[in-house]
């Protein structure tokens, strides 16, 4: 499983309001793709369609050449989600939340679940917080448990829906970005990352997909070959920023 993702002329409407109009996109397996667009353009709807949580009106969505609608229950083994809000169950500990995902997946071996949960919490530097309840963790820590839960599922594709947007501290944001990058380099999963912040996208991804305002189409795709760690004030990234800003001025006007 390489985790290649394709959408072909994907369209979605809510009654008369067309949200997505013929969105075609090709994401290579193991790549880090950021979907960038203005607020309210339908990025989250797009992600929910990819995740099979939202029906669509036309077009196709494929993972490794298979139609997501045909995958049925198997879709849960193809992709996992890092949610915008952590969506942790309050009555389970950090470790318990990760284990819960494996239980939901049908992993019957309790020892195995515990091992996996410990391993992924170690990857996000939360091993010593295994027995803490979500209310005992900071916002950043909860978001790291959210990330660990997706990692525990070990799916070829991980969808991330603005995972930094609920964090207030700039240090927590920076810390989580670094962890996401480190884990991507370590595990080479296909990451589709939704954001409305250009700096975040430029720092993280190796492919930037620019979406228009509603009805949403793909405006342009930018491949970033700049080595990491990236300096957001570097001239090559500034050039891209200027180009994107120009593009959006034109598109939005």
């Amino acid at each position, binding site marked *: 499983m390489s985790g290649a993702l394709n959408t072909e002329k994907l369209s979605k409407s809510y009654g008369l309001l067309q949200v997505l109009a013929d969105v075609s996109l090709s994401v290579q397996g193991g790549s880090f793709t950021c979907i960038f667009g203005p607020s309210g353009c339908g990025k989250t709807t797009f992600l929910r369609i990819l995740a099979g*949580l939202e029906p669509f009106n036309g077009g196709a969505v494929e993972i490794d050449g298979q139609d997501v609608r045909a995958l049925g229950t198997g*879709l849960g083994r193809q992709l996992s*989600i890092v949610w915008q809000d952590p*969506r942790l169950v*309050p*009555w*389970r500990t950090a470790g318990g939340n990760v284990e819960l995902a494996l239980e939901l997946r049908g992993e019957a071996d309790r020892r195995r679940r515990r091992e996996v949960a410990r391993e992924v919490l170690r990857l996000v530097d939360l091993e010593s917080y295994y027995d803490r309840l*979500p209310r005992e963790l900071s916002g950043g820590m909860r978001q790291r448990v959210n990330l660990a839960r997706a990692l525990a599922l070990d799916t070829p594709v991980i969808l991330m829906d603005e995972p930094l947007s609920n964090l207030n501290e700039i240090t927590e944001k920076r810390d989580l970005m670094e962890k996401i990058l480190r884990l991507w380099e370590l595990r080479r999963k296909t990451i589709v990352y939704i954001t409305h912040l250009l700096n975040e996208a430029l720092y993280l991804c190796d492919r930037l997909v620019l979406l228009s305002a509603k009805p949403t189409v793909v405006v342009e795709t930018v491949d970033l070959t700049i080595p990491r760690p990236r300096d957001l004030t570097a001239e090559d990234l500034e050039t891209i920023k200027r180009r994107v800003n120009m593009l959006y001025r034109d598109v939005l006007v």
Partner: protein
Amino acid sequence: MMEAALIAQPRGQRRQVLGYLLSYLVVLAAWQLMSLRLGPTVMPSPLETARAALTILSTPVLAQHVPITIFRTVAGVVVSAALAVLLVLGARYLAPFRVFFLNAFYPGLRAVPPVSIALLAIVWFSLGTKAVVFVIVVTVLPIYLIALWEGLKVLDEGLLEMGYAVARNRFAVFRKLAAPMLVPTMFSATKLGFSVSFKLALVGELLAATEGIGYVMHAAQQEYKTHLVIAWTVIMLAVVVLVEHYVFNLVERKYLYRWETTKE
């Protein structure tokens, strides 16, 4: 400042205890006055009632009748809870049943008078445990139904969606997420259901049984032994308070604190 607070604390506690004692003394004095005015058949004195309570506690009558009433109470609560789970899930997932449930079954059940139920229970089940449990179930069931139905409406949709995205199986999501989310709702309904069930067990036993506390109290009332009726009432009050304190409050403190909402 700190020292003053420390000194003031025992004084405050003493005042509180004195306040309690004083309020009890006022109640007992009023009771005694009423007893003197109305006579021992209508209102026995506190002393007479205390003697009667001690007699009940020291004879096998207590061990003979209290377990029967408690068993009926608990059976009524358990059957009501189980039925409510089945009915509410049926209404949630089966659209035709939902219409019947919301428009006919639930409003109808809520409106049936307990006396009618008790009289019908005697006809259908004759005197005994089945009749008493039936009375309890028909009356306590709506408490569970409304609690569960409303509880289902306010489940955390975000968590359910997270679960579905992983499991892609609605039954697994219900078992692992929705059911635990409903535990506090069920707990509150059980707390209320238990006290209502206990009262109904006594009423049910009064009409439809030949043993149990309600039956014994009825027998005492028939013989104008009002002191025994009040003594049984005091004992039952103590049982309910003990169950509330040692069962419900303990479970709440030990297990339900984890359901507190996530705090920043």
